[in-house]
């Protein structure tokens, strides 16, 4: 049973044109940050979401939580259509769906103490107050590896890794079921990153949490996710069980992504795919398959036709016109 189902979700940012621009007929500018994304996450599962910078990962995460109002599509959480909830019920729902942010510096209010920050959900949802709230807060802090004695300190008195723990504690204090982790380790040093990953896995195991884990680092996703979705310019190009996708990537973008990851293993014998050019701007994305401008396998049809998502294996699907041909960039080069 899936805990979360996202159906055809889109988030378009429309840039308002000024009166002057309208008068001179400047075109309306729209960023299709998330474009018709569907996915589902089972209870207790970690869904990894990877993709390059600006492809819409964060937007998708926030749209699911309705931190950014989706432009269209549905988000069904535990049987409730989150996208249709009125404000009051949405607020209640926020107890159950939480988010952990990338930047341990920007995500904590520098003017409030740890007790304030972590205890905020308790106050907002009327769960507890006063000494009771403090007790709960202290417990959660201990849970994430901090100490109760640090309750009255300010964020600047903590290191990056400790701050990230505070952020995690804040997300956990209201006992959520589902947590969006928006690149929670990208800003951290390798040695600290490992600490946080270990903590997140431990929490998931102990509390039965479900994560949407966003990252641009395939190694991290490959290490901890159960399933993975690969995003390119606002769309999911390939998704499936993590092993299946990493071992047998079928979309040329996934393939090039995988080949680009540097690895500490012995000198690589892996082939390298060289993509041409840069990511197109989401302001005027290419027509047809959005990857065709950089795809070594692109054919004429790719420029005009939007590829359908097709199943490849159990729970594994990809959107590419040349899927059936069984071509692989990796093998090609080899």
């Amino acid at each position: 049973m899936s805990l979360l189902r996202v159906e055809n979700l889109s988030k378009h940012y429309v840039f308002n044109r000024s009166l002057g621009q309208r008068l001179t007929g400047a075109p309306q500018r729209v960023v299709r940050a998330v474009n018709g994304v569907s996915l589902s996450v089972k209870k207790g599962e970690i869904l990894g979401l990877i993709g390059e910078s600006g492809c819409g990962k964060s937007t998708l995460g926030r749209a699911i939580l309705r931190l950014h109002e989706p432009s269209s599509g549905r988000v069904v959480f535990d049987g409730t259509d989150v996208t249709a909830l009125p404000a009051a019920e949405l607020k209640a729902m926020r107890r159950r769906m939480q988010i952990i942010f990338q930047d341990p510096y920007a995500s904590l209010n520098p003017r409030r103490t740890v007790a304030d920050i972590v205890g905020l959900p308790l106050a907002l949802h009327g769960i507890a107050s006063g000494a009771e709230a403090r007790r709960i807060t202290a417990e959660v802090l201990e849970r994430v590896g901090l100490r109760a004695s640090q309750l009255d300190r300010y964020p600047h008195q903590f290191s990056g890794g400790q701050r990230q723990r505070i952020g995690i504690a804040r997300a956990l204090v209201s006992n959520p079921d589902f947590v969006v982790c928006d690149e929670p380790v990208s800003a951290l040093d390798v040695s600290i990153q490992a600490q946080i990953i270990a903590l997140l896995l431990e929490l998931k195991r102990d509390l039965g949490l479900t994560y949407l884990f966003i990252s641009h680092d395939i190694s991290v996703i490959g290490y901890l996710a159960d399933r993975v979705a690969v995003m390119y310019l606002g769309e999911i190009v390939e998704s499936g069980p993590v092993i299946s996708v990493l071992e047998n990537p079928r979309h040329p973008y996934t393939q090039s992504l995988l080949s680009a990851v540097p690895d500490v293993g012995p000198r690589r014998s892996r082939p390298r795919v060289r993509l041409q050019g840069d990511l197109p701007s989401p302001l005027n994305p290419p027509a047809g398959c959005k990857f065709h401008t950089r795809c070594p396998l692109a054919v004429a049809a790719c420029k005009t036709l939007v590829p359908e998502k097709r199943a490849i294996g159990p729970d594994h699907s990809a959107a590419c016109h040349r899927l059936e041909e069984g071509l692989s960039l990796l093998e090609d080069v080899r």
Partner: protein
Amino acid sequence: MSLGKLLERIIQLIPVLLGVSLIVFVMLALTPGDPVQIMVGEQSITPEQEAELRRELGLDRPLAERFLRFVADAVRFDFGQSYYHGRPVADVIAERLPATIELSLVALIVALVTAIPLGVLAAIRKNSVFDRLATIGSLLGVSLPGFWFGILLIMLFAVHLQILPVSGRIGYSSEVPTVTGFLLIDTLVAGNVSAFGEALRYLLLPAITLGLPMTAILMRVTRTSMLEVMRQDYITFAEAKGLPRRLVLYRHALKNALIPTVSVAAIETGSLLGGNMIVETVFGWPGLGRLVVESIFLRNYPLVQAAVLLYAVTYVLLNFLADILYTLLNPRVKL
């Protein structure tokens, strides 16, 4: 710069101008003191004559009608007759405006040419004696009441040392044909170098008095932004390229450091234009500011309305100009 942005600027101007004129209008209307009474003063006047005068000045109309008429006329650059001057307001203002603009511009130039090098130098020699002196100087500059400073300058340079004139725009021995109204330009057009020098001498003290606070502010802005820029990666990278120091400072640092200076200068110039009646009064400078203050006391409504509108337009235009300058300095911003 795109046509759209230009259009937009013009469209933005409309509510500002309407708002400004509405405020002046309401303000003047609510101000006690009857213009007719003030005109007549101590002389006797029959009620019929008074009514006649009132009608001539349009004061017998309801306020809303007067406002609409004012707006309608203003669109055609018709600002009515000045009660006191017996001439169109536009003419009266046009005669005074060049003096005010000239003074403000020279003050601005004085401020810019002293503030920028001083600010840069203070930033480069951060924490040096020079930097400290400059900082104290700039603090003094913003702490001195302008009128007091002006009078002190007159006492020193005009009365005691007698090396600069007390008041006015130019002496009366030189005749300068009016072309632009800006004496510094007109004297040059006339090829009269000694008159140019004279005009400059007359300008010096008022320009310094007017420009001083601005110099102080701009110097601090330049210093701060220069220090900020010097911390940027691109300065380190320029150093890493082994460029001569001069090039690093002036091509790489200064151009970026001037960006905040320009926008502050634009705002300050606005207040300079609107705020120089004090300097005009102290130095007998025949500018618009003094005229407007007198006109408020005389309830010379048409003149006040037109002048305030003019200030508003100037302010908006100045900021527009600053925006253009901004894009020249900062290609990231597209107008």
